[in-house]
């Protein structure tokens, strides 16, 4: 918890006008990103991806393959960056950690009874401690949406604060709001404020496990919460939209939004991430298109 900062009354979080948010969101999508700014953007996107596999059927082999891909996105294209991190279940952290050793790629682990969060706090704490013991660099926790809807904002706050304490200096904490279950944009804003003031290093939209995932209006609402916190305290908070971002064009519109709301300072994977599994390959296709002038068959790009 950030001790010197006064905790606001979350029942009075700033209001959000949905019509206005959608109007603003549509403006980012009319920005035309061409030539060298497009190539720069595509490379940035790759470098901001948390390459993710969160399946019951995940195996050590699968995780190893993904970790290799994280470091070798497309060796035919020289000079490409690595992705930012790989994101796995706690049971796969040790495997992933070994597989990305020395590459600079971080290992993020979901925890706190991901994706529903419907477990006692002791279980969530154990889940987190295990992931940390296995060497996780980042923890992606879920908030208790049920408690949020009951108006138990302090409960939600305390859970986040305690997990943050467990993370200590070892891991950066991403707090997943699961905005598809949270409800209106007013709620997204309030949940963002709770997460930020409770100690989140990143706020993240979704688990990717329900139908409704990241969208530009939802992300915009969360970026405004980050901006307000920065204006008040001077502390930067990161943002991670996750789920549903599978095309380069859409990803670039997210970058446009981050640039125009928060500024260039947020345009690195320290402060912005994409939670995505299929985005990387579309970006690779687009980069090859920029380089060669023609679209390649998807068969030239590996599918891990």
């Amino acid at each position: 918890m950030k001790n010197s900062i006064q905790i606001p009354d979350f029942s009075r979080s700033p209001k959000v006008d949905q019509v206005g948010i959608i109007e603003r969101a549509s403006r980012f999508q009319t920005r035309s990103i061409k030539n060298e700014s497009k190539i720069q953007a595509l490379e940035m996107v790759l470098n901001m991806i948390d390459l993710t596999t969160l399946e019951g059927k995940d195996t050590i082999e699968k995780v190893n393959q993904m970790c290799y891909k994280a470091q070798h996105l497309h060796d035919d294209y020289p000079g490409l960056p690595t992705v930012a991190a790989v994101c796995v279940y706690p049971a796969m952290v040790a495997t992933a950690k070994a597989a990305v050793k020395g590459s600079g790629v971080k290992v993020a682990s979901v925890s706190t009874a991901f994706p529903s969060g419907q477990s006692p706090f002791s279980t969530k704490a154990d889940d987190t401690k295990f992931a940390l013991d296995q060497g996780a660099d980042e923890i992606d926790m879920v908030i208790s949406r049920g408690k949020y809807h009951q108006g138990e904002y302090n409960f939600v706050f305390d859970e986040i604060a305690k997990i943050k304490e467990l993370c200590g200096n070892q891991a950066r904490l991403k707090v997943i709001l699961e905005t598809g279950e949270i409800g209106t944009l007013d709620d997204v804003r309030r949940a963002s404020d709770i997460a930020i003031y409770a100690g989140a290093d990143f706020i993240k939209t979704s688990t990717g496990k329900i139908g409704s995932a990241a969208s530009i209006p939802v992300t915009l609402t969360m970026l405004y919460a980050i901006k307000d916190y920065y204006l008040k305290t001077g502390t930067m908070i990161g943002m991670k939209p996750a789920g549903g971002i599978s095309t380069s064009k859409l990803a670039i519109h997210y970058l446009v939004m981050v640039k125009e709301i928060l500024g260039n300072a947020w345009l690195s994977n320290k402060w912005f991430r994409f939670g995505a599994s299929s985005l990387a390959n579309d970006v690779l296709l687009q980069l090859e298109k920029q380089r060669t002038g023609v679209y390649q068959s998807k068969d030239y790009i590996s599918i891990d």
Partner: protein
Amino acid sequence: MSKNKIETEKMNWEYAAAPESASHIQLKEKYDHFINGKFEKPSSGKYFDSINPATAKKIAAVAEGNSKDVDKAVKAARKAYDNVWSAMPASERAKYLFRIARLIQEKAREFAVIESLDGGKPIRESRDIDIPLAAAHFFYYAGWADKLDYAFPNRKPKSIGVAGQIIPWNFPLLMAAWKIAPALACGNTVVLKPAETTSLTAMKLAELIQESGLPDGVVNIVTGDGKVGAEIVSHDGIDKIAFTGSTDVGKLIQKTIAKTDKKVTLELGGKAANIVFEDAPLDQAVEGIVNGIYFNQGHVCCAGSRLFVQESIKDIFIKKLQDRIETLIVGDPMDKNTDVGAINSKSQWETIQGYIELGKKEGLEIFQSSCKMPKDGYFIKPTLFTKVAQSSRLAKEEIFGPVLAVQTFRTVDEVIEKANNTPYGLSAGVWTDKGSKIFNLTSRLRAGIVWANTYNQFDPTSPFGGYKESGFGREGGLHGLSAYLKFD
């Protein structure tokens, strides 16, 4: 070979130029008047230049009209009215309007490019707002043409005759559509004069009208400066004047037509108050304020040029506003990423600069974007003045440029009093999360249009017009029809 940039490099990411191509447009070197379905040389034999304000270079020459040209146009309009248009079944009139609307859509890209070249407005605005809205107006009024009896039940609406229409330079094609569409739908014929700095899309519209097969003389367009406008206003053959422009000229028109039975609608200047309460959704309010004053470089009669912000949120709101202004891209109107384009003309540029100098001299606090500015052409940075007094000329006079005057307030009554304390009354904006506050303000603000939690929204179905010195009569919607009809 992977390189790892994690947590190291800060990106300096800028947008590369993304210019809209102008290679597909067809512009003539010289444009004549459009009279009786044909392009006619001006009787003066003279032409004047139409300038691209973003480069200060000539794009085309336009005919300089005089009283003879106006007389010819009015006579053609009268003949078309008597012989063809007023006698035509309304459902047939509608077909022509639908056809014009569809043709505008088909040629939307060319119209958008010419509008931006000639007027300086960003291509994003002409492409997404001006041209689609112009088509929408024709579609909307086409639908009414054969339903006038239902629009005004038991009142027997009849057409008026020949309408003289004078339009401004801020939305050239859109204003032409606002004027022509309802006039024709109601069975009138028109003589239109575009503003002298922005005649080109009107002349392209004339070509399109010719192509649509509209009977000769139903729409006539005479180009030129204010003298041509004066000729139209004072011509005996005109039955109705529709004018959009400055309040000074509006007053002159009223003087001229006094003692005649000419009908008139005037849509004049404004100095709109945009009022932000502490409970408003602030980030969206910032967007609305920016859109309210920097849309079309502030060349908007309903621009929200006075910002009233509640004292308790003043600091944070101004900070957010300044941050947002910093992200506006000022420059080449033809670039798809440009937010604020060129000032329409040199003389308007000088007027706006004069007000900025005045503000500095008055000791007001000025904030201007630190954006890069183009070297040529007429551009002005988005500008914000704080600590403005109600009695300052910056808060009283219409600047018609990207200059916002900020004042603070404490109570609802105070802000209503201040907002209404202006000779104008065209539009206003209210920003609050509380419904009851919205209703209280919308009923007490003396302005023709009051937007709540949004700004600068236009739609053909919605009437538009002012109180007091912002004019009278309404354009758009049913109200816009009644301005072109007489009733028994």
